[in-house]
């Protein structure tokens, strides 16, 4: 079965991508990254960031909240220490960029553009867990567009802009970044949420508010993917709560050209591989030739 996927020039052996912040090198002990379409390591900023106070994760019904706070060791560490390991494992790597200012996004993109082995860039203008940058860029079409333009000016690889669900109109933001030159959009990042630790009568997370992910948010993600795919002509990468190949196929039917898996990996580390196998089986069973035939098929 032909699972070849091309996202604005990024060639993937299948449409299954591991979402940023959820798939670390340690998982290579339990599943084979070379079998996946691509891996997006945790977002990197220019300098190292130490992240938010504990607790950083909290389980909710069929979902989880996180407030990691973009903890990472900075772009130099990523390029020198982490990237080579991913490449040696045979992974296709898309790098995720975060920043507090447009300049920071650009500086990280600059470093990553000089490196071999990165297939594309995803700009994370949608992280809800930091005080500056992140979601603030993603919520304002104008700012999101400015980041996109700035990164596009410097980047020598396809640029995917990762959108936040926490907006009144995702289509406005999607159109703005498309106009600014984005090669693709991915959505959704986490949904803003909060939990109360009733035993302590306090907010559960150290930073009070966090990002909701997992099966609970799937219908929200599907709606936003459906809307975004109707609003822009660039490829849409869908994610949010995907745990099975059926889920992945639903996102593709709704208009996604590829999908990402986040939280489900925590539950079942082999989710990525299983979703690839499940898509393959579905296509055979329903007499498709090609995974691209699924894209947008359920759109009215």
């Amino acid at each position, binding site marked *: 079965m032909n699972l070849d996927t091309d996202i604005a020039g990024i060639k993937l052996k299948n449409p299954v991508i591991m979402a940023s*912040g*959820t*798939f*670390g*090198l*340690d*998982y*290579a*002990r*339990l599943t084979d990254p070379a079998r996946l379409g691509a891996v997006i390591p*945790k977002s990197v900023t220019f300098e190292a960031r*130490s*992240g938010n*106070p*504990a*607790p*950083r*994760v*909290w*389980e909710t*019904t*069929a*979902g*989880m909240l*996180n407030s*990691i706070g973009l*903890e990472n060791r900075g772009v130099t560490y990523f390029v020198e220490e982490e990237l080579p*390991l991913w490449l040696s494992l045979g992974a296709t790597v898309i790098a995720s960029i975060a920043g507090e200012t447009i300049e920071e996004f650009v500086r990280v993109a600059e470093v990553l553009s000089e490196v071999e082995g990165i297939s594309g860039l995803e700009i994370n203008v949608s992280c809800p867990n930091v005080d500056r940058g992140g979601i603030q860029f993603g919520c304002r079409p104008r700012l999101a567009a400015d980041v996109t333009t700035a990164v596009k000016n410097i980047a020598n690889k396809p640029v995917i802009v990762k959108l936040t669900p926490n907006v009144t109109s995702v289509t406005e933001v999607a159109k703005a970044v498309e106009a600014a030159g984005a090669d693709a959009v991915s959505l959704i990042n986490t949904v803003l949420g909060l939990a109360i630790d009733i035993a302590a009568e306090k907010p559960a997370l150290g930073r009070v508010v966090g990002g909701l992910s*997992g*099966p609970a948010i799937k219908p929200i993600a599907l709606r936003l993917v459906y809307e975004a795919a109707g609003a822009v002509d660039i490829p849409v990468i869908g994610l949010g709560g995907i*745990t099975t190949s059926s889920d992945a196929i639903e996102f593709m039917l709704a208009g996604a050209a590829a999908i990402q898996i986040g*939280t489900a*990996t*925590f*539950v*079942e*580390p*082999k989710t990525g591989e299983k979703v690839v196998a499940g898509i393959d089986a579905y296509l055979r069973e329903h007499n498709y030739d090609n995974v691209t035939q699924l894209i947008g098929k359920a759109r009215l």
Partner: protein
Amino acid sequence: MTERHLTQDKLEIISNKVVGDRFYRLTVRSHSWAKTARPGQFAHIRVGTGLEPLLRRPISIHGLDDRDAVAFLYQAKGAGTAALAAMRAGEAVDAIGPAGNGFTVDARYKRTILVGGGIGVAPLMFLAQAYRAKGTAVTVLLGARSKDCLTCLADFKSLGCQVTVTTDDGSEGHRGYVTDILEQQISAGPGPVAVFACGPTVMMRRAATIAALYDVHCEVSLEERMACGIGACLGCAVMTTAGYRRVCADGPVFSAEEVVWIG
């Protein structure tokens, strides 16, 4: 990526039984886990098969029943541990591990003092097994609400440990906190001595303070909410003197001096 052995396995349940007030003892068959596991490591267990509860649960390795049988001791608290408690012999537990770093097991120590509070006793049995196998003297100080896990007492004793129990209400053993007798125990014999603590934060903090006072090596096993359990998500970070570190991959055992106690 360290050179640790870590796999995802379906571990066949040998037995899964109540051994105290909401305490369960689960034993599974796995030669490879029994061979590679170190005291202080844990299994990241899938509870149930659906999407609710969603995340895996970290449960310490309690000890080895024999070279094929690994034991866990857990307390039924919420939906996840309840689902685990409902599993029966013959079924299989989906577990990732042995995860985490583990306690130091070093024959250099003449004596070890194991300080456990509540379900914190779970990993200490395995540690006691390891030290007793080296012939090291093991003193176990157990703090409990009341009679949480009496079978543990017998198990420690049959390993040749000296066991002292304290309860908050005096319903069993000494009345008071388990750390009340730690000072006396540290100075009660020859050195070098090491203290290993697992239990409520206040207990571990107190143990760490006392150990520092006597300049004795002390390790604590920390708890934090986990998602991946494998070092990928940075969800289980705790503050240390070296910045945030991951309980699941850099811990759960930390040298007491490293820990920045909060609250």
